[in-house]
C-alpha cells in the first residue's frame, strides 16, 4: 500500500481531524484500537496484539509495526 493512501485511510477510519503526518501523535481509544486491528488484518493480513498497539504513538510507529516494506 502506498504511504499516502495508508495515511488517508487511517485519517478517515480513526476520524482524525486536521492534518495527519507520520509524526502526528496518535491517541488510541479501545474503539480505535479495534478499528486498527481490523484494518491491519484486512489489508496486510497482519495480526497485532492490543498491547503492541498501546505502544504506538505516531503513524511512523505503526508503519514500523506493520513492516516498512509493506507501506511504500
Amino acid at each position: 500500500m502506498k504511504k499516502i493512501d495508508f495515511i488517508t485511510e487511517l485519517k478517515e477510519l480513526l476520524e482524525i481531524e486536521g492534518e495527519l503526518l507520520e509524526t502526528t501523535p496518535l491517541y488510541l481509544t479501545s474503539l480505535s484500537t479495534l478499528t486498527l486491528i481490523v484494518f491491519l488484518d484486512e489489508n496486510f493480513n497482519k495480526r497485532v496484539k492490543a498491547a503492541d498497539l498501546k505502544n504506538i504513538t505516531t503513524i511512523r510507529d505503526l508503519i514500523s509495526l506493520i513492516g516498512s516494506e509493506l507501506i511504500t
Partner: protein
Amino acid sequence: MEIRAIEYYLPENIVSNEQLVKEFPEWNLEKISEKIGINQRHVVANNETALDLALFASEKVLKSFGKDLIDFILLCTQSPDYYLPTSACILQNRLNLKTSIGALDFNLGCSGFVYGLALAKGLIQTRIATNVLLVTAETYSKHIHRKDKANRSIFGDGAAATIISETGVNKIFEFELGTDGSGMNNLIVRNGALRNQFNPFEKETIDESGNLSNNNFLYMNGPEIFNFTIENVPTLVNKVLTKNSLSLESIDYFIFHQANKYMLDYLRKKTKIPIEKFYQNMENTGNTVSSTIPIALKDCFERNLVKKGDKVLLAGFGVGYSWGATIIQV
C-alpha cells in the same frame, strides 16, 4: 433428536442509549450505537437474579411441553445465586419438576448454548435422558461497574430455555469445540470467588477510553477478544463444515453469538458468508452472553427467517476462551 421448543425471558427494566448518555455525557451516542448495533438492553432489578430469569424462561417453554417429560436440566450461567447449591437443583424445585431427573450447572459464557446442545446430545444419545431442558441465564449487569460505560453499553441480561428431545431423527449434527485458557485474563471478574475474594477497598482504574472499573467487576480487553475471534471463528466455521461434510453454500442460515455489530460484520466478511444468510439482531437486547443464540433462533422461527428443513450453522465464542459450533436442521 432435535430442538423442540425455545422461549426466552428478558427482565422488565430497560436501559436505553439515551439513558446511558445522561450518565455519560461525553459518550458519542450515534457513533457507539452504529459500531455496536445496540440501542437498548434489559437489566435485572437488584433483587432479581439469573435463576429468576431462568425460571421465567423455563415456565414459558414448559407451557406447551409436558413438565413430566423433562428428565434433565442443564443450566448455563456465570451468575449463580450461590456457590452451592447448584442453581439447576433449585430450578428443579421452583419449576415443580419430578425429582427423578438429573440437573447440573455449567459455567460458560458466549459459547454456552452450543456446549449445552453438545451435552444434551450426549445425554440423549447415551439414553441417559430423553427430554433435556437447556437453560442459559445471565446477568452480567451485576458483574459490571456502574461507571464502566463500554461494558454497560454492550451487555444485556436475559435467559432462554430450550427443549431438546429424542424424536427418532437426528437434526443436531456434529460439533466442533475449542478451548484456550491462555486468554483467561482478557475477560474476567478477578475478585469475588475463592482465588481473590471481593475486596471493598479495591482501587479503581480508568482505561484509555475513560471507563472506570476495578478487580471486583468484569474486565474485558475488547481488542484482544476481537483478535481471538478473528483468529478462531473463521477456522471454527470451516472445521464444523468439514466435520459434517457440508459446504458453506449448503448452509441456509448462519447464527453467530451476537457479540456486537462491528465484530459480526467483520467475521461475516472474513468467513465469506453472504449477508442475506447471516443473522444480526441485538438492537433491543444487547449481548445476552449465552442466550444470544437461542434468542436469535426463536426470532428466526417467528420471523420465518428459516424454514422447515433448513440447515442452520450455530457458532458461539467468548470468555474462557471457549468456542464451539454445530449445524442443526430446523
